[in-house]
């Protein structure tokens, strides 16, 4: 093996144990000296390359990992918390809305009947058709005075909706008429409790509820009312 080849190979890998190299080093002390020299260089190189590693680098790497993992999990959790919160909110709003929906106008009207019993009439002075129609005008309605004696016309709130309550003396007895200026509010076509019963119908922008004592002929009064109560709009 020529010297250049030997040197190239030793420089490339001083740890090479190839027999040809060993043989060459045995044969020529110069080769062997060179080899030992490069091995010494490599020993130094090994020390030189082993630069000091920053203190606690390993712990830092593990720590950084657990922190990121924790943050990642936390983000994940937040996502779940967010979902849970919105589910809870939706449920809350839904239940509230559902409960509100449940206060149907019929029930509200029936409840109002008991209250109205004590409220009316204040004195015997009849309510004139003009007074009644003045109030009805606010609801865009007008009533034919021929329907009967109007005992009272009062505003009331049925399920938070400002409504008008007319009490009319008829051949079928005292009848209550509620004008509820909100058509979309839920209302049953007929409703009753132990003392009263009622019917409802939609008219233009309003719901009209007719409530009378139990057993009264409400359907026939309702059909009279439909002819007597006109809506202008």
């Amino acid at each position, binding site marked *: 093996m020529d010297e250049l080849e030997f*040197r190239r190979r030793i420089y490339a890998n001083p740890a090479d144990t190839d027999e040809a190299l060993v043989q060459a080093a045995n044969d020529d002390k110069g080769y062997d000296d060179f080899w030992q020299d490069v091995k010494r260089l490599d020993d*130094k*190189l090994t020390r030189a390359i082993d630069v*000091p590693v920053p203190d606690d*680098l390993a712990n830092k*790497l593990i720590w950084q*990992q657990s922190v990121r*993992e924790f943050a990642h999990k936390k983000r994940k959790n937040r996502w779940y918390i967010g979902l849970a919160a919105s589910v809870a909110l939706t449920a809350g709003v839904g239940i509230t809305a559902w409960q509100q929906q449940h206060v149907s106008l019929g029930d509200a009207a029936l409840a109002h009947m008991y209250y109205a019993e004590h409220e009316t009439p204040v004195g015997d002075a009849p309510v004139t058709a003009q007074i009644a129609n003045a109030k009805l005008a606010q609801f865009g309605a007008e009533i034919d005075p021929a329907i009967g004696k109007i005992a009272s016309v009062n505003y009331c709130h049925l399920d938070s909706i400002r409504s008008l309550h007319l009490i009319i003396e008829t051949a079928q007895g005292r009848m209550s008429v509620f004008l509820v200026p909100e058509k979309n509010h839920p209302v049953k076509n007929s409703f009753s409790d132990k003392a009263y019963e009622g019917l409802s119908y939609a008219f233009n922008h309003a719901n009209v509820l007719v409530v009378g004592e139990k057993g009264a002929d409400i359907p026939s009064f309702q059909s009279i009312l439909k002819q007597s109560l006109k809506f202008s709009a």
Partner: protein
Amino acid sequence: MKEKTQRYEALVRALHADVYRYAYWLTNNKATAEDIVQETFLRAWRALDSLQDEKAAKSWLITILRRENARRFERKQFDLVDIDDVSVSVSSADCHDNDTEIRQLRRAMAKLEEDYREPLVLQILFGFSGDEIAQQLDLNKNTVMTRLFRARAQLKEALAPSQPERGRQNG
């Protein structure tokens, strides 16, 4: 998850020092090396499930680290290291080491071309064979052996002037 954490910790403890040294010689800068090592281990964590063979962990980490280093250059073109910085950095790196010869050697290492330095570090630090280095750096083996030869020859030369007692020029 606990198993993965244990595996990761074992990987860090076993290889962080040499991976850091490798990064140091790749970048010639302690702070940059530490950053790259952190980024490397972060990626290693994410991809830990893909590491099937523990024996392959070294070259797997080296591959990640080299990619991170390449990204660094994509990000900042100006981040090329100045030789003066290298000298400062290197001399501060061995402040614990009083051996002037070692200090001198580190300075010479820092001045080596990266193409020469990298295979040398792989060989000495990780004990890679010529074939393994070739595979890691995606070079053919002859090129690797030539670079190793030139790297040592240049280092020897760099040390020679201050050591005239050896009386011999090599390489």
